[in-house]
């Protein structure tokens, strides 16, 4: 029987820890020992306890927690904040502690050779008593500090690790490391004790903390590679943000939805696609929030549920502005077609925001989500974290077949792009630019659809005006060039004609012979069109 189980492929034990099983491709290798190494404060103890807690709560699998560092009493108290009533589970016989934390009141003298037989006997006893399938040991490094003879501790840890396998449990052992990028663990042997190695990191980058988990090796079985951001939240504990878990398997919808503006719909070739992500880029005051407001109004008008994530303006400001454009947010909220999540982006990390947004989406089940603005969120995290947030968010809403509209603020008034766009433009299906255009001492606004994945669209830059009813699209800027680069140049109709005819002539020269007729055709056509206004 043993023979057979040795040959069988490694099975995975689903841990139930938020999204961890996704990056671990099923969970922790069953009946094996896994080392979880991390610096101080990286979340080792939480992970170790959650491994047991989710087993007890979700899978009726009992657990034993061996603590070398904090006392059992401290852990019981600390874990209450996650909603885990450890004392109750202990009473129900679902959880047992092996408290091996040092007692400062007891002096210990070492005289001659020893082993950790008592510890092993206690662990076996606890596993037998509760019928445990999961064991967490927190943390190995603390065992070393309790004894002066390190070579004995080293030998004994190996013995305990192999005994754990003999008990038929899936074990998680934690260990400390001194740096986030350096040796796997402090004493240099911890990683050899376990079959599998995972690393938690808690890196301070640009004054912002970033927590990640990485699976270094799973012996004999597969896992996802690289660092995955995670966060620890009060009601969910340890939650991994699985970026690569989100596969590009969303089926694409060809159903069009209204942007809330008939004219803009026309520019987009009939409206946005239902499961697309649209980026609105523009300087402050160009009409981004208006576009958002129209988008929400357009949804509510046909009975769709809309979620507004506002990070730039207060609720009151948003509602007042909407009224100014003839949209009544308050009524929409009353009717249940609108929900507004409005807060300072700084109150939480990007990982936490992603979770908050995901939960709101799952609960409210909107058809449309608008986020105003991404640039405000960009301040909260590092560039990498921000990119991960956008990837996580866009793929999440696409998966739910929700239309997403994001805004991004360009740093300069005229032209220009923001860093935000550079990082996310490939993730969006459509990009709409709003730009100021200076014309003869007057600021005009221009709009253009830069990209519209899977659809034809108006490629011209059109003027638009804003009044009490919203956005009105006007004529294209014919005789202005350089709007997008921020240096509009006015071209007189005569110059325009000369430039174009020269261009066409040059092209004609080069191509003459082979496709001469075509070029001539094009020149005639374009000349005509340009003369018409």
């Amino acid at each position, binding site marked *: 029987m043993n023979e057979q189980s040795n040959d069988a492929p490694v099975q995975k034990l689903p841990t139930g820890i938020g999204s961890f099983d996704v990056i671990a491709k099923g969970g922790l290798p069953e009946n094996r020992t896994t080392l979880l190494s991390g610096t101080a404060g990286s979340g080792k103890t939480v992970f170790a306890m959650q491994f047991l807690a989710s087993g007890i709560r979700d899978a009726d699998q009992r657990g034993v927690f061996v603590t070398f560092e904090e006392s059992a009493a401290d852990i019981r108290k600390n874990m209450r904040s996650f909603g885990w009533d450890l004392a109750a589970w202990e009473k129900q016989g679902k959880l047992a502690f*092996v*408290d*091996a*934390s040092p*007692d400062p*009141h*007891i*002096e*210990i*003298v*070492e*005289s*001659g*050779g*020893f*082993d*950790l*037989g*008592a*510890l092993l*006997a*206690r662990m*076996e*006893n*606890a596993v037998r008593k509760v019928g445990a399938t999961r064991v967490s040991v927190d943390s190995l490094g603390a065992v070393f500090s*309790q*004894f002066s003879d390190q070579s004995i501790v080293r030998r004994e840890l190996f013995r305990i690790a192999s005994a754990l396998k003999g008990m038929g449990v899936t074990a998680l052992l934690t260990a400390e490391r001194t740096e986030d990028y350096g040796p796997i663990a402090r004493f240099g042997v911890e990683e050899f004790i376990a079959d599998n190695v995972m690393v938690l990191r808690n890196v301070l980058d640009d004054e912002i903390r970033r927590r990640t988990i990485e699976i270094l090796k799973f012996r004999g079985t597969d896992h996802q590679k690289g660092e995955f951001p995670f966060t620890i939240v009060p009601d969910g504990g340890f939650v991994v943000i699985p970026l690569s878990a989100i596969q590009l398997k969303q089926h694409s919808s060809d159903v069009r939805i209204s942007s809330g503006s008939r004219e803009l719909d026309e520019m987009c070739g009939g409206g946005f696609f239902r499961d697309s992500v649209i980026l609105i880029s523009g300087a402050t005051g160009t009409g981004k929030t208006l576009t958002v407001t129209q988008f929400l109004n357009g949804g509510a008008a046909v009975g769709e549920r809309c979620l507004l994530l506002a990070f730039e303006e207060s609720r009151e400001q948003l509602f007042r502005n909407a009224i100014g454009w003839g949209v009544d947010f308050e009524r929409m909220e009353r009717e249940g077609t609108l929900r507004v999540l409005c807060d300072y982006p700084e109150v939480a990390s990007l990982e936490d925001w992603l979770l908050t947004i995901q939960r709101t989406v799952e609960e409210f089940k909107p058809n449309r989500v608008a986020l105003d603005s991404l640039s405000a969120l960009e301040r909260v995290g590092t560039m990498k974290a921000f990119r991960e947030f956008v990837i996580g968010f866009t793929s999440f809403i696409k998966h739910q077949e929700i239309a997403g509209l994001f805004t991004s603020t360009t740093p300069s008034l005229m032209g220009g792009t923001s860093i935000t766009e550079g990082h996310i433009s490939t993730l969006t299906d459509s990009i709409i630019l709003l730009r100021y255009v200076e014309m003869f001492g007057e600021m005009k606004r221009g709009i253009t659809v830069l990209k519209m994945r899977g659809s034809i669209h108006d490629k011209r830059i059109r003027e638009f005006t804003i009044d009490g009813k919203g956005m009105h699209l006007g004529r294209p800027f014919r005789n202005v060039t350089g709007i997008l680069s921020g240096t509009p140049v006015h071209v007189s109709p005569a110059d325009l004609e000369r430039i174009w005819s020269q261009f066409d002539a040059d092209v004609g020269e080069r191509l003459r012979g082979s496709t001469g007729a075509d070029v001539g055709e094009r020149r005639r056509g374009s000349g005509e069109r340009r003369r018409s206004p």
Partner: protein
Amino acid sequence: MVGSLFQGGSLANYVLRLFVTGTSPRAEVAVANLRRICEQELQGRYELQVIDVLEQPQLAEDEKVLATPTLIKQLPPPLRRVIGDLSDKDKVLLGLEVRPAALADSDPKPKKK
């Protein structure tokens, strides 16, 4: 269990517990070492209980014992622990806070068990 340590009303002012694992050679060495030291230094003034952690893991749990062998001096206070096979007599006496010379002076009436 604790009550049994005081049985017979002897003048046992040292109450010792020795935790060992099974009948390993190290356990036997530790027991032999401890008995010899006690006979030499604490004649008749001690109670010794040897506990096998494989048979009574709960006792090890209650006392939070990790290593075997572990010698616990329950009485007199303070609680002291010595781990190892007790081959270093001086360290054992240090751990038990027994000074051989002082012992010889202060207690002229040793009693055999």
